[in-house]
């Protein structure tokens, strides 16, 4: 069975500092990978996705992620965070396009 692990449940970071949110997945077949962001009292919004091709994927709000097949990782990065990036971030994987597996989330807190 496929699973997704987000290694950090909470990540505090100072404003304008870089951040990396870690995600590992388990799968022996090709996967589609996603990062979602959830602001308080809202639904999940797609940040970026990897389907195929270039392993470096750029998303909205200055975020990017790198697909690493050998390490089965899909870590999310941003070079300089803003207060408005404070939110919950979810990594997800799908190997069929219709069944999805979510990590338990990482709470990013940006400190002024």
């Amino acid at each position, binding site marked *: 069975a496929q699973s997704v692990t987000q290694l950090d449940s909470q990540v505090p970071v100072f404003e304008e500092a870089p951040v990396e949110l870690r995600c590992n997945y388990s799968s022996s077949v090709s996967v589609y990978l*996603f990062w*979602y962001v959830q602001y308080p009292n809202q*639904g999940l919004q797609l940040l970026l996705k990897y389907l195929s091709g270039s392993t470096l994927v750029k998303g909205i709000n200055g975020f990017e992620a790198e697909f690493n097949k050998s390490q089965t990782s899909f870590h999310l990065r941003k070079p300089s965070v803003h207060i408005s990036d404070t939110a919950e971030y*979810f990594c997800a994987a799908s190997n069929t*396009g*219709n069944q*999805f597996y*979510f990590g338990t989330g990482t709470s990013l807190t940006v400190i002024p």
Partner: protein
Amino acid sequence: DAGITQSPRHKVTETGTPVTLRCHQTENHRYMYWYRQDPGHGLRLIHYSYGVKDTDKGEVSDGYSVSRSKTEDFLLTLESATSSQTSVYFCAISGQGLTFSYEQYFGPGTRLTVT
């Protein structure tokens, strides 16, 4: 905007009463899902649908039933609500619709409190 709405957005109900939550989409996506979100558990799949009248169970389906009589609507019913079903419920869609979507799009959520 994937055109997903959920109703009601908030509901308070008493233990033992039936509750139905509605998810409505406007883009005819094939797959629809119901999740619940609880602190420390992330998102957990309750039921999903792969077409009209075609549904299947997820990992936390006990106490819930679903129906999909039209492409655009996916209903989640708590047959007899319990306090453990207090949660935030999200609907999602994916797959072939007006366009094909590999990713899921989520509705705004329904906050359900069972007293």
